[in-house]
């Protein structure tokens, strides 16, 4: 255990990057996913088809391939993230971080869209009809009536999607972000005799993150059930 205790700064910096990746891509994927679901259930056929195509394509692509695309293929097509140069104390959010957030957000938004769609389907048809009857346009029907109820209904699947995202951030370890798994590999390489202890310490880190998030999701679910 000494290897981790002596390098607690590395440990926390690693999980710091994991957390930054999760927060940035979590928010972006929710926004993008909501937009996608609005397209999918909306009245414009082209947008609906496009959203369905996007979901099918991205859901069928392994995350590593999405990462590889934004790391290796995108720069050739002149899509670069070199403009990103943000500093947060010890944390450098640079091109690699940008590419990782974009990959994770695009990937996760497809799952967010489908989780939300299950929520939309749970809203009784009468609600949308009533909203239309009082003269709300489609945007009003969605933002005022359908989506608020859909979000409440889809908290459990959305939480699952975001928990998967927490763990998916580990793929960034081999795409230039010094997050938790990357730090773990550095430590197991330098302290080979304490491999198991190091592994357990990092597993605990992930468990804590996931449990904290599930707890928050549970409270939200209960809060909304009473309301």
């Amino acid at each position: 255990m000494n290897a981790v205790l002596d390098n607690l700064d590395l440990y926390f910096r690693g999980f710091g990057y994991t957390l930054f990746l999760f927060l940035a891509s979590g928010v972006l994927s929710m926004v993008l996913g909501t937009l996608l679901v609005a397209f999918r259930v909306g009245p414009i056929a082209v947008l609906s088809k496009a959203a369905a195509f996007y979901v099918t394509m991205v859901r069928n692509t392994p995350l590593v391939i999405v990462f590889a695309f934004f790391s290796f293929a995108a720069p050739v097509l002149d899509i670069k993230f070199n403009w990103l140069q943000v500093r947060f104390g010890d944390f450098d959010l640079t091109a690699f971080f940008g590419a990782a957030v974009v990959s994770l957000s695009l990937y996760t938004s497809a799952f967010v869209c489908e989780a939300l769609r299950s929520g939309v389907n749970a809203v009784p048809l009468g609600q949308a009809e009533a909203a239309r009857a009082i003269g709300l346009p489609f945007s009003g029907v969605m933002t005022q009536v359908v989506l608020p109820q859909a979000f409440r209904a889809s908290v459990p699947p959305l939480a699952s999607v975001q928990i998967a995202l927490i763990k998916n951030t580990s793929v960034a370890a081999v795409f230039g972000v010094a997050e938790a798994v990357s730090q773990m590999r550095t430590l197991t390489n330098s302290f080979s005799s304490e491999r198991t202890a190091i592994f357990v310490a990092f597993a605990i880190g992930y468990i804590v993150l996931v449990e904290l998030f599930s707890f928050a999701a549970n409270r939200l679910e209960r809060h909304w059930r009473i309301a």
Partner: protein
Amino acid sequence: MRFTRSKALAVGAALALSLAACGDAGEDDAGEDVEVAENAAEDFEDGTRMKEIAESGKISVGVKFDQPGLGFKGATDDIPKGFDVEIAKILVADLGIDPNDPDIWVETISDNREPFLQEGRVDLVLASYSITEDRRKVVGQAGPYMVTGQQLLVPADSDIESIDDLKGKEVCSVTGSTSIDRINEQGAKGVGFDSYSECVQKVLDGTVEGMSTDGSILAGFAAQNEGQLKVVGEEFSEENIGVGYSQDSPEMCEWINETLTEAFEDGTWAEAFESTLGPSGVETPEPPTLDECV
């Protein structure tokens, strides 16, 4: 009936011959030929791991498959090639086993070298395996058979001359490697990818200004991308590359050292170096001094 059967036999024999010919052709470019020791089992004392291996005729050696010049296996290669592999061949041949048998070679990555030795999945590891105090707590390490240091690989038109010019900037290497630690110690920021060739890509597309690892590995990539990349800077670390073996058989250390000393003296070590790392422009150094076995 008889006629067709003999014809089939002839065709079969011809096929087998041509296949064997293919095999021979493949071996020609598979590196140096080493002489396989005859009746090797008699050379070792009873009860030693070497005797056991020599008698069974089976050995597994862990090498890298993705480092040009050291241990590299292309998609169509039967056995990997590189300097690590050549040294391993000398050891394998000393046990009376033909090193051209593909079953001997097992891919080890940086992360699984100790577990593989501890579990007995491999008998020896020659996978650019730096000798460190901490590793010697869990596995045996004999050697070193090579001393290298870390340098920088930058675009050919870059002004960077040493690691000092990259303080505070991002330098690419492999996730979890010793190289990343050294980069961070020098004040630059190590960013990790899965393999060195991916780092080369990041240097070429300009996301990072340079990458760093052992000079011998970088020289190989500079040769592959002539005119686009160059190796610069003094070596800013010293890595002693050794042979890993299991702590269950400490007697292997003496044998490895003896075999290496022989290879140093009769020139096979230098030949192995020239044929693998020589083409990328690395000069053949003096053989390193071996550590005493404990």
